[in-house]
């Protein structure tokens, strides 16, 4: 895609196609303070998820003798009413939420992109079939289908991946299909076809690279949705298995016990982690859209 906008070429970054677009999009992204802040927060949360369980003196399954302890040097955020170290549970919850989110999103991309490309590019019966299939999935509001699958198949990480991926792919497939459909009519695709380049190669070399920006944006915002969906299911008690902590489950457990005596921090910390992650992903997605779409530069 040597369609680099003139503004990029003018900056003297060199004019050779997509290798230029990525770094300049990144620098444009980082110039947006909200996006930079979101990236920082997300990095911190990922660090907490990856590093803290390794250095924490407690295991996430270890019930210490301190029950409902306040924050102290031994328990940085205190313990909950089962004696779990809150920070350790939060970090493990981050691991669970983030890996479910990323894993499901990869599944969704792996299923949604090829189906959307094929339906959009070849049209006819493949397209009709796809649209009917997605219509069928869209008859279930929101995450109702995932609720059904999890309630019937029971809680487990594996079931969760499948349930959320099944609920998630139709949206992405539709997006890719729509974009492909409009790209198919563009001159450079028609030129490639006139030159006799096989369809597979046209899709890979000419259509897919032009789809990357909308896909990256959609995947970032979808990731927030998947994380909310996982937390919702875990909150309802039909998400990850009982042995694993999850932000959603932590909120639910704290919620059911806190009508009697209350320790608000048990609700507030997981709620804060979840909200920050989801908000930052949304900010990042919006900023990515602006950074990757050179046309929107004119508006700002």
């Amino acid at each position, binding site marked *: 895609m040597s369609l680099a906008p003139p503004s990029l070429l003018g900056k003297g970054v060199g004019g050779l196609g997509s290798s230029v677009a990525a770094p300049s999009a990144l620098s444009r992204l980082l110039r947006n303070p909200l996006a930079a802040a979101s990236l920082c927060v997300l990095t911190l949360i990922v660090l907490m998820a990856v590093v803290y369980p390794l250095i924490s003196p407690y295991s996430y399954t270890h019930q210490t003798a301190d029950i409902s302890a306040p924050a102290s040097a031994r328990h940085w955020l205190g313990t909950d009413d089962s004696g779990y170290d809150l920070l350790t549970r939060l970090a493990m919850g981050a691991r669970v939420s983030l890996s479910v989110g990323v894993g499901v999103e990869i599944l969704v991309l792996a299923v949604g992109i090829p189906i959307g490309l094929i339906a959009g590019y070849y049209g006819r019966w493949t397209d009709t079939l796809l649209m009917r299939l997605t219509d*069928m999935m869209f008859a279930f509001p929101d995450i109702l289908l995932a609720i059904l699958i999890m309630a019937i198949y*029971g809680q487990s990480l594996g079931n969760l991946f499948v349930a959320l991926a099944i609920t998630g792919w139709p949206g992405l497939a539709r997006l890719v299909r729509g974009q492909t459909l409009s790209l198919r009519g563009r001159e450079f695709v028609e030129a490639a076809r006139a030159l006799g380049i096989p369809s597979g190669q046209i899709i890979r070399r000419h259509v897919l690279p032009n789809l990357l920006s909308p896909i990256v944006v959609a995947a970032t915002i979808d990731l927030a949705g998947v994380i909310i969906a996982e937390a919702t299911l875990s909150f309802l008690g039909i998400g990850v298995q009982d042995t694993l902590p999850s932000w959603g489950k932590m909120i*639910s457990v704290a919620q059911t016990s806190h009508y009697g005596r209350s320790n608000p921090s048990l609700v*507030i910390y997981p709620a804060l982690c979840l909200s920050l992650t989801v908000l930052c992903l949304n900010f990042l997605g919006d900023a990515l859209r602006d950074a990757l779409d050179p046309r929107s530069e004119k508006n700002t």
Partner: protein
Amino acid sequence: MLQFLLQRFALALVSVWAVCTLTFFIAASAPGDPALIAAGEKASPAAVAMARHDLGLDKPVLTRYGLYLVGVTHGDLGRSFLRDREPVTHFLRRGLPNTFLLAFAAIVLALLVGLMTGLAAALRPNSLVDRSLMTSVLIGVTLPNFVLAPVLILIFVQSLGWLPPPAQDNLWAITPDHLVLPTVVLAARPAALIARMTRASLLETLRQDYIRTARAKGLSPLTVLLKHALKNAFLPVLTTAGVSFGYLLSGSFVVERVFTIPGVGEQSISSPGERDYSVIQGTTLLLAVIFVGINLVTDLLYATLDPRVKAAEGTA
């Protein structure tokens, strides 16, 4: 118009059939033996066989599918595997008034708040008011309801004591102040979506030539906005409201859990581990059918209100 109506109606019927099929086969392929669940863990083989026969689980899957479809058309959704093998429709009939009351209150609130917020923001685009409103809208869209609910409970029930704690009772039987928090929590996201759409749609409409004409005639900005722009900007808002209603239905699972409201969601998944397949299946079917119905109504309203759609669809 009749052709358009029939076409949409047929599509909705196909959707309902698809939903029936999908829910049936997901439930039928469930791991574990439902007859064993129904008879109880320690039941004798004879008792399990009896439960299997009683629930019709000894028939082949396709026969059961056929019987299920026939049953659905007669309003028979099978019986609960647990809980005295009560018909599924009894559970739904008990839960639906609560779920519906909540969803209805929430969509009314969401429309009111959403339309007003969107209007206020669109009056002066990019002003301080607009920016702060749109920031709260973004928070409303992203914050999940099970985060919002505990925080509001902490503030309004536990700290300030303005509102009563959840009542664990039929919503129609208790005082309206129990309804306030669940309604607000459920309405937050739809309200934010509606506000965003109202603003975008209004700004788009305000660029049209006929708005300039109306302004040039010397009409006051408020008259132009309310009488000329809002009417045309309302259509996309209507669609958003229709789609949001679907969110209300699945969101009710969470809100019913937090506020211990005996609605359809809470009745079907309140006891984890005890998987009452047929009740979950029936609940999903009911909610999806309501969703399809609302989408159908939205489509038809859209066509009635916007002559362009009628013309385009009529020729297609």
